[in-house]
């Protein structure tokens, strides 16, 4: 159907922990040179899926072909062509940036130049610093540098920007886009919708161990079939409001006391909403409108927010 070379083919991958199935037979392909996002709420199975792909867990069923090698039979070959940055892993605090990169490079038959890698990851002034003294963003860039020491084709990043401040996140986005420009294939998981929108060429949404959607970010939003969202609260709470009666509303959602109406015709819906509120003597508060986002797609599909408060 398309001219893309498929560098990762996931086939019916299953992982069970006792009676609980963390991953229930997912299938997808990743094209060479794209940034592929894996999204889902906590416990959706993203990390488990990723860990099976990089050889940290054995799948109970199914397999995947990565860079031409089967993960169940040729995991050593697979590890040579992939680089991984894992969630919540740490490295030896007492070594310096340069030392740890040389150490990890020594694990592989092929290496890149460590000094240019340090430049590229914007760690030049931290070259001789101990890992202990790095900031969160610097540590995360180092973790990505460690994934790149052997010049892999495919890079797996598990929640690379979780816990970083906005500036450090932007810096990391630039690095990911730079890697894409250099022709690397990137598979990442994230909690942030804006991040997925900016970085990813295609997004797979996982929920309860299953893949429930896979498309480009813009097409996913389009499939929601609603362009806009209207958000508001009622100052005097009333349970008897039938918001579906508001004109143009395709879907109603309530999070705590905030209502979200999805519509294709913002003007009609707004007019109708205000009229209804006036008729029933309800006071609207915090009224705002916005275009529908991936987050809305996500809530629409899973019934849950990505990040639960």
């Amino acid at each position, binding site marked *: 159907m398309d001219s893309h070379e498929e560098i990762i083919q996931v086939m019916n991958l299953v992982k069970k922990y006792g009676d609980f199935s963390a991953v229930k037979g997912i299938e997808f392909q990743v094209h060479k040179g794209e940034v592929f996002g894996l999204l889902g709420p906590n416990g959706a199975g993203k990390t488990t899926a990723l860990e099976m792909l*990089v*050889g*940290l867990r054995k799948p109970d069923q199914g397999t995947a072909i990565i860079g031409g090698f089967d993960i169940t039979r040729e995991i*050593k070959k697979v*590890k*040579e062509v992939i680089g*991984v940055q*894992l969630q*919540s*892993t*740490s*490295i*030896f605090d*007492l*070594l310096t940036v340069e*030392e*740890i990169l*040389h*150490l*990890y490079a*020594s*694990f*592989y*038959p092929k290496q890149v130049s460590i000094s240019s890698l340090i430049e590229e990851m914007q760690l030049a002034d931290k070259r001789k610093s*101990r890992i202990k003294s790095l900031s969160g963003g610097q540590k995360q860039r180092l973790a990505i540098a*460690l994934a790149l020491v052997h010049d892999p084709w495919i890079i797996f990043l598990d929640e690379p920007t979780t816990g970083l401040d906005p500036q450090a996140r932007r810096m990391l986005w630039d690095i990911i886009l730079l890697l894409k420009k250099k022709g690397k294939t990137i598979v990442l998981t994230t909690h942030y919708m804006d991040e997925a929108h900016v970085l990813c060429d295609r997004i797979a949404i996982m929920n309860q161990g299953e893949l429930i959607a896979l498309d480009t970010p813009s097409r996913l939003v389009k499939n929601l079939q609603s362009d806009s969202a209207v958000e508001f609260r009622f100052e005097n709470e009333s349970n008897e409001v039938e918001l579906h009666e508001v004109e143009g509303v395709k879907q109603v959602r309530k999070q705590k006391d905030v209502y979200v109406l999805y519509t294709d015709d913002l003007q009609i819906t707004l007019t109708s909403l205000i009229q209804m509120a006036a008729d029933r003597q309800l006071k609207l508060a915090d009224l705002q409108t916005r275009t529908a986002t991936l987050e809305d797609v996500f809530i629409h599909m899973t019934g849950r927010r990505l990040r639960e408060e």
Partner: protein
Amino acid sequence: MRAYWQLTLSQLRIFLRNRQVLFWTLAFPIFLMVIMGSFLGNGNGISLSIGVVDLDQSFQSDEFLTTLMKNKAIDVQLEKSKNTALNKLKKDNVQLVVIIPKGYDAGLSEIQAKTTPYKLPVYFNETNITASQVGLQIVNNIIDGISKDKVGYQPLVAMDVKGVETLNLKYIDFLVPGIVAMMIMSNNMNGVAGQIAAWRERGILRRMQGTTLKASTFIAAQITARLVLNGIQALIVLGVANLIFGVEVRGSWVTLISFVILGTLAFMAIGFIIAGIAKTPESAAPIAGFLSFPMLFLGGVFFPIKDMPEFLQPIVQILPIAHLSHALRETMNVGASFLSLGTEALILGGWLVGAFIIASYTFKWE
């Protein structure tokens, strides 16, 4: 191979940069050695004071006192009356009391004519039997010497005393090899268990598992780095022992180092088992402590194994620390060869192989 060297180097760097751990793992054995060595290091651990009451005040009694004082093993205290002397004995301030009764001089002068010897009363405290026995032996020898001298006795047969090892061993000679063995045990068993469990908890091992690094390379590098560290630490302890107490290594260094290596490997293997069993790094320390603490006291580190009660002997005899400390002791004190320590080497080797087999089953990367 590059991965092996890089990992060994990294591990050594981590050891060296972890100043506090480095300091305390060395400070503790040295501190223990200096303290125990200073208190008990010289002599045989028994101090003897003998109270003497001289009621005769004659030439002969004076001569007896001089002979007694010449003996360096005892401390002679002159007492005024029998009662004060016996009170001191009861309080264990002195271990023996010798009374020289009035008429001792006269009694000795008549002795030539008589066949029954003159009786000299000697009191001892039954609650401190070891010291009293040694003291009685010494006093007996002195009295024997005096009476032989008086009668002009010429011995027909005499003992020619030859110690098998012809060495003058003190407690410190016993202690230092024990301390080295203790250090090897705690640094490796407790050290490996704690470190591996912590690395696993923090995901360091998992991250390495994501690379093409082989587990065997990782473990080999761990072993090498720890051998280097242990070797240096053992040398420092031996150096301090030599400087302060003049303890020396009489046997071959090759044998000594062989046993340091064997001990390190055996205890590391046990450490790997503990790391495998421990669910969290917090539980690794108590488990290691549970094993190392009894070994410290039962394994012949501070006290000879033969002093242990009979029912503990079978347990004590299979402890790896017992054989390590014994082998180090024989090498350092007596100069035993590696071949003569075959049993020790075999038992430590058995622990090493057995523990590594168990460790390979219990070991988990995550």
